[in-house]
């Protein structure tokens, strides 16, 4: 099946108040061409689940976000994300701030269609104080230990960016880390993958080892060819982070005029 589509098609598939999971990590291999398309759209009241970077910041800046589910939001080389900070400090968004491992566990539980997965992560911390819906579960075995029952984080839609993909939705990552992109796809009802380049399936083996093929076509509903689609975040080995553009993004955040000028250019 040819699953090619465009950023505009993805926006059409979304609706207000949906829960979106965004792959990548911090300012690394984020599906920014899809995020920009959402930022330009009239969509609103979204819940965003992310190992957060400029995807979170940009959607906050454009007022698209009702709720954030995250462990951190950072631009890596710039530790703090200015638009995320402004949204938090202005009380503009609801949040579910989690330990990073709890976030993985929630996505994994959703992937496996389990209601929760047990973990010690979060116990004793204010993650439980500020997420009063989180429940504990007692081990049914002799140890009787109390554990956090990390609930499944079900996603309406997952968005990821890969180095290469074929028409059918098989994806290849050629950088050092897949991050949690497979889990985002497995946890979602609809899954969209942008990529640097669409290639013939036969080419995968010439580009990387078998182990780089971690996204298969049963995990993907739509494929978008988007050269440079992760910029200004990094997408190795195709390109590194555009530090100058990221700096411009971060510096413009404090100033309404500069910010709208930057967004007019970047979006």
């Amino acid at each position, binding site marked *: 099946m040819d699953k090619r589509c465009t950023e505009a098609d993805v926006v059409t598939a979304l609706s207000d108040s949906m829960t979106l999971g965004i792959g990548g*990590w911090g300012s690394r291999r984020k599906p920014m061409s899809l995020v920009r398309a959402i930022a330009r759209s009239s969509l609103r009241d979204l819940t965003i689940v992310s*190992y*957060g970077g400029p995807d979170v910041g940009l959607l906050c800046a454009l007022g698209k976000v009702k709720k954030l589910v*995250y*462990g*951190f*939001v*950072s631009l890596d080389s710039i*530790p*703090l994300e200015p638009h*995320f*900070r402004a949204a*938090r*400090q202005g*009380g503009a968004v609801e949040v579910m*701030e*989690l*330990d*990073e*491992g*709890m976030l*993985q566990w929630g996505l994994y539980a959703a992937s496996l269609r389990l209601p929760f997965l047990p*973990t*010690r*992560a*979060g*116990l*004793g*911390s*204010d*993650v439980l*104080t*500020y997420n009063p819906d989180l429940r504990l579960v007692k081990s049914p075995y002799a*140890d*009787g*230990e*109390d*554990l956090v029952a990390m609930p499944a984080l079900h996603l309406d839609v997952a968005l990821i960016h890969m180095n290469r993909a074929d028409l059918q939705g098989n994806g290849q990552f050629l950088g*050092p*880390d*897949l*991050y*949690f992109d497979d889990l985002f796809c497995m946890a979602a009802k609809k899954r969209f993958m942008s990529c640097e380049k669409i290639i013939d399936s036969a080419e995968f083996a010439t580009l990387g080892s078998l182990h780089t093929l971690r996204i298969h076509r049963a995990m993907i509903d739509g494929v978008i060819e988007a050269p440079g689609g992760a910029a200004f975040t990094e997408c190795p080995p195709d390109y590194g982070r555009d530090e100058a553009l990221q700096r411009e993004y971060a510096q413009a955040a404090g100033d309404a005029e500069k910010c709208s000028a930057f967004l007019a250019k970047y979006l």
Partner: protein
Amino acid sequence: MLGILGEIPMSADFTLAELCAVACAEIWRDDGEILASPMGLIPALGAKLARATFAPDLLLTDGVARFVNGRGEVESWIPYRAIFDLVWSGRRHVMMGASQIDRFGNQNISCIGDFHHPKVQLIGVRGAPGNTIHHPTSYWVPNHSAKIFVPKVDVVCGIGYDRARSLGASGRWVDIRRVVSNKCVFDFETPDRSMRLRSLHRGVTTEEVAALTGFPLTLPAAVPITRVPTAEELRLIRDVLDPKGVARSELK
């Protein structure tokens, strides 16, 4: 040899940055074959120094997804999908930063002020809750002040010994080892596992640390001086591990 990027010379022999790198290295002594995860430039220099000297079995990453050995060669792969497996298995000793820390070692990196209406949003809890409940943790504070060493943190991210105690069996792996600052080293080797002054960096007084700490200090009978770098440690730092002084520039 001295004055690299404006480092403060402590004596004719070594700088404060070099002393702190050694104090950070010391946290990984006797840890064996585990992942050392330093957050910050001086802790990273310390971890490399520990491996190059008294802790040769430590695993270190390049900060991305590769285990890199002492010769700079990639020896294995540690993507994020494997990190939490390692963390939860306990084979790691992290040295994190702290925007606030209290006398039981509760740490905050989430936000300053009320969580629901933060005055200053920081990075988020990150992996601090899961790190502290699963494996050894130490902290690095490059700018010792009463704004950081506080009576009560605004958001508990890394959990301290008082919180751990209330958890019973689930808190049994909480193991906060040291807090290294630019003034001194703390440990938690007290009956109630509260923070205790372990050693003062050369030239620093107890009174100075007390004035920069927002809770009463627990003192040993006599406060030792933090171990000073050996000649071999200084050679490794200057010639091999940080020849351009980049790591040492964290303490200007």
